[in-house]
Every structure is written in C-alpha cells, then in structure tokens.
C-alpha cells in the first residue's frame, strides 16, 4: 500500500472520485437489475455498469498507473474498447432471443407459423392502411 502515498494529492482526489462514482453507478445498476419488473426493463439497468462504471474505473486506473510509473499507461483502453464493441452485440442478441421466446410462448411452443401467402397480404395491408388513415385522420 506504499504506492498510494506516492501519488500527488490532486491525482489521488480525482482517482478516488472516479472510483467512487463508478462503483456507485455499478451498484445502482445491480439494484435496478433486481427491482425492475419486466425483462425488457431489466435489460437496461446493468448498462450503467457497462458504460459509466467501466469508463470511470478505467480512467482512474489509467491516471493512477501513468503517474506511478512516470509514463503513459494506456493498456486499460483495450478493455474499454472491447467492452464498447461487445456490449451492444451481446445485449442485442439477448433481447432478440427474449423476443423470439416470448413469441414462441404465445404460440404455445407448437412452432406453428402461419403460412405466408404471396398474393393476399398486400391487399390486406392496403385495406388496413386505408382504415387506419380513415380512423386516425379526423381524431387529431
């Protein structure tokens, strides 16, 4: 723990502030993950930790090791860029999987998909559009 005394005071304060705010935001994301009601709401809660928590703790770590070693330590940026690239991919795939599972559950897990007709649906959609336009037009 002797390395903490070697930091200049302003850097120690900035590092402490960043670490405290990042850890608190991650904890709030965890609280939201437990307390929110539906899955699609819970999907949004831990992204606090993914974005703000990772960003602030990585910035604090970069600042601290750069000042301690007297050179620019930027290898924490690798974690940051990796998280920045992979988080949207994972959460998008998870959300699509949840949507598909919900649809399958409404169909009763029978995997019965209604057949797609090439000719009739355009006529139906045109009728729906016309009825929507008729009913939705005068209301506002």
């Amino acid at each position, binding site marked *: 723990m002797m390395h903490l005394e070697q*930091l200049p005071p302003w850097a120690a304060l900035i590092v*402490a502030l960043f670490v405290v705010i990042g*850890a608190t935001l*991650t904890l709030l994301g*965890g609280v939201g993950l437990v307390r929110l009601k539906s899955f699609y709401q819970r999907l949004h809660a831990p992204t606090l*930790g993914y974005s703000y928590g990772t960003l602030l703790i990585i910035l604090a770590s970069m600042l601290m090791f750069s000042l*301690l070693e007297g050179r620019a330590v930027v290898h924490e940026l690798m*974690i940051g860029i990796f998280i920045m690239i992979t988080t949207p991919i994972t959460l998008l795939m*998870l959300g699509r999987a*949840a949507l598909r599972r919900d649809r399958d559950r409404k169909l009763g897990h029978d995997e019965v998909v209604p057949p797609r007709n090439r000719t009739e649906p355009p006529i139906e959609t045109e009728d729906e559009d016309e009825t929507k336009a008729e009913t939705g037009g005068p209301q506002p």
Partner: protein
Amino acid sequence: MTAEILRFALGYAQIALILALALACWRMLLGPRAQDRVLGLDTMYINAMLLFLVIGMGNGNVFFFEGALVIAVLGFVTTVCAAKFLMRGEVIE
C-alpha cells in the same frame, strides 16, 4: 491525508462492487425465465472485471489487468453462446 481518502475510496468501491455482484447473483438464482439468468450472469462477469481492476489499483499490481481482460473476453463469449442457444436451440448451426 489524500492517501487515506484514496484508500477509503478503494475500499468503498470494492464493497459496492461486491454488493452489485451479489445482486446480480440474486437475479441469476431468482430469475423467472432463462434470459433473466443469462443477463444476471453477464452482469456478474462485468462486475467481477471491475472488481479485479479496483483490486489491482489497491495493490499496485498490473497483473490484475490481465485477469480483468480474460474475464471480459470470457463473458462476451459466454453471453453470445447462451443468447444463440436461447434463440435457436443450438449454438452452431
């Protein structure tokens, strides 16, 4: 004085991250459906990675960074495989 503040901040951050890890673990054990469990597992990976970074800052040891990087990569692969399994019923088509 500032070293004391920094030490207190690092201790608080470790406790907060462990609490967040416990909450994500609670959601993983409780989760009503499978996608909730996968989301809780992914959150646990990210929280463990942040915890490793904070512990490495407290020790002044650079090698915790390597562990954090490995945890991040494993978390990504795990969550993508679990999501593909939930979506299709098989991982590799």
